[in-house]
């Protein structure tokens, strides 16, 4: 081992307890940071996936203005050929056309206003999780059948079951009166009351007929394998849009503006907390290193009078700090990864948080995601601040006067 390295290593162990306490502060903060960051990003991933999976998909083709107003006449013409053209061009099944209208659903006993989706029975399961959540009966099959699937809360409120009839009333694309009688063939349950209470799905062919859509729909939903691929796919989709039509592509962030902002708001408060932890560790290091410099004034005086430059001593102090910091980084990252891995396997559930989880489409038990990135980011930042904290003690050495320093103590 290099002599300077050995010197630094020995110096930090001159005060074992102090070094361990300072390292302990780092290990504590690092463990906490690894756990929190892994948990946070695990939750954000789930929030995004689960929210997009329900309806919105990674992106949608709509006409300009539809996203904000959702008026029935803001329609995409020839929506089924458009979707099937894109499916062929991109060789994927995860593209589906939809229509949406608001209507009054009446059973023999009750009437409720609901959102009615017209979907392509074959492709909807590729872009939405709803078809997979059928609890009773079956999902839609034929694109022109007078079938409907509804949410479980709505079924309870309307007091209908499989095989019962529902009357739908609404206004068509041209403002005329739209009405239909349909059979309940399936009931889905997503666990989110708002969805289970307010949503029904019809085959798109029937939807277009009932609401006088003349072949039009309101959105083409496009799913990619993951968010990164969605970003790559977006410009290609824009290019593939038929020329001359007034259409836009909205990505998930535009479709669900609340989602990214909720994450940002949560992140900024989390970063404030992390920042405070890091600063407290830095204070601890500053204190330790300042003490270790001050108590060695006499010794430093001697080596300086022997010709050692203060700059070199400063580097020695920085090296000692770096060693201590590295120790904290390694131990903290290991402790953090182990601690978090336990929860990665067993999951974490916070009692009484079910309502909060449901609000953000999270399962009641979350599994933090440990990876290299989430394990190292916190500890590395702590390490950098540790070095920063040692700058002041190191610079103090330049003010040291060899003769006076030797007289100290």
């Amino acid at each position: 081992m290099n002599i300077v390295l050995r010197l630094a290593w020995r110096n930090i162990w001159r005060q074992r307890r102090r070094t361990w306490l300072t390292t302990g502060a780092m290990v504590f903060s690092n463990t906490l940071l690894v756990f929190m960051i892994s948990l946070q990003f695990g939750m954000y991933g789930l929030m995004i996936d689960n929210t997009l999976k329900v309806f919105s998909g990674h992106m949608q083709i709509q006409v300009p203005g539809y996203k904000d107003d959702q008026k029935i006449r803001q329609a995409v013409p020839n929506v089924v050929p458009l979707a099937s053209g894109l499916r062929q061009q991109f060789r994927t099944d995860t593209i589906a056309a939809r229509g949406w209208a608001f209507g009054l659903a009446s059973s023999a006993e009750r009437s409720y206003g609901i959102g009615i989706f017209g979907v392509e029975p074959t492709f909807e399961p590729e872009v939405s999780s709803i078809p997979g959540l059928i609890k009773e009966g079956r999902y839609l099959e034929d694109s022109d059948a007078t079938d409907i699937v509804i949410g479980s809360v709505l079924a309870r409120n309307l007091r209908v079951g499989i095989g019962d009839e529902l009357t739908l009333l609404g206004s068509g694309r041209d403002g005329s009166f739209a009405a239909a009688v349909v059979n309940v063939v399936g009931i889905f349950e997503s666990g989110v009351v708002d969805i289970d209470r307010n949503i029904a799905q019809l085959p798109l062919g029937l939807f277009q007929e009932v609401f006088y859509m003349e072949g039009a729909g309101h959105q083409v939903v496009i799913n990619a394998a993951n968010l990164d691929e969605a970003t790559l796919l977006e410009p290609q989709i824009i290019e593939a849009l038929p020329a001359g039509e007034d259409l836009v592509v909205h990505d998930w962030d535009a479709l669900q503006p609340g989602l990214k902002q909720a994450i940002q708001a949560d992140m900024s408060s989390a970063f404030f907390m992390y920042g405070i932890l890091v600063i407290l560790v830095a204070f601890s290091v500053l204190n330790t290193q300042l003490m270790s410099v001050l108590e060695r004034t006499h010794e430093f005086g001697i080596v300086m009078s022997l010709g050692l430059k203060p700059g070199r001593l400063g580097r020695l102090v920085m090296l000692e700090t770096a060693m201590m910091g590295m120790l904290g980084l390694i131990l903290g990252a290991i402790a953090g990864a182990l601690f978090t891995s336990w929860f990665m396997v067993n999951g974490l559930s916070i009692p009484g948080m079910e309502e909060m989880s449901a609000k953000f489409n999270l399962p009641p038990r979350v599994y933090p995601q440990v990876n290299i990135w989430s394990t190292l980011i916190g500890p590395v930042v702590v390490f950098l601040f540790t070095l920063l904290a040692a700058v002041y003690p190191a610079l103090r050495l330049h003010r040291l006067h060899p003769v006076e320093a030797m007289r100290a103590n």
Partner: protein
Amino acid sequence: MRMLPVLSRLAWRYLWRNHRRTIIMVGAIAVGAWAMIFMTALTRGMVDQMIRDGISVLPGHVQAHNPEFLDDPSVSNRIAMGDEELAGKFDAMDFRAWASRVRVPAVITSERESRGVTLLGVDPEAEEEFSFVSYEDVEGRFLETPDDKGVVIGRKLADKLDTEVGKRIVIMSQDPDNEIADRGFRVVGLFKANMAAFEESYVFVGKKTAQKMLRIGDTTTEIVFVGDDYRNVDPTYQRVSEAVAGKLKVSRWYEVDTYLGTMMKVMDGFVLIWVIVIFLALSFGLVNTLVMAVFERIREIGLMLALGMKPSSILGQIIIESMFLLAIGLGLGDILAFASVKPLESGIDISVVAEGMEMWGASSMLYPKLYWSDMVLANVVVLILGFLASLSPAWRASRYEPVEAITKVG
């Protein structure tokens, strides 16, 4: 105990012997204390506002319904007692405010569009105090009497329906015989609300007009009561429960909106966890400082012991030193927190993430709120845990063998 003044003076002087170390430690404690209180004030402010907004839509601290109504919100599950009977019961009971109202799901249709909404048939005078709509801040006018023939809708809903003040819309719902009940209304006002979702989903009409349209005589579906403090709703709950004697289901606000109730509970837990985490991060530095302070003066401690000072006095002295450190740090942190929260109490504009905050159920203005109880909690927890953390170094110092300690080469 007689030694206390002497020990305190000794501790104080020792503290300033190495002023740099003391200043750094005080700085760390101050930053920690500031962060504890500041962060708590921010989240408290957010949750308070959420709950206040939430309660104002519910509205009221305590509600009474037909037991079936919450799961099946239909007029067939209305309250069997008429308005006169209710007034006879509750007017004399001196609640801060109470009102009976019609609340049913409905469909609203303009010439071009339809949407699902919650129809509220209200007595504008009775609800003015706790309504989430400020009557002055309405484009056009708010309803004036319970038999007002107009309708007041949110601005956002008006956009979606392509309608405006002066135009006509149709509202459809159900009567008790499950027949469609509908009626045309003229839009007389557009209201603003803290959250866009409220503007989209609530529609106000006069209570009597709604009763006539739904053919329910003078009955209603919901009675709301406002007590003095949303944190303490049990007195109101008790009195209402006794008055309705089991005929209606009486619920506290946090039972009606369980998300809000959870948020309030989670918040209290969060404050304590946050304070403890910060303290733990601080404790390493604190113990370190004390260990160093003891280590540097082993010889002095040995001398004092040799001269007859009791070990318990040494123990006391180190603990007093630690308490001084904590007290100065906490004092500074408190002042810092107070000084930084006070100017922000008029509100922080976080509308950049407004839609995200709305997902959390919070509005786009954040009003930090400094509670004395949170400040006291933070200080007391730090002092108690600080006392415990300093026991070990102090104990060690008091156990030195005088002769060994004196001869130790520092």
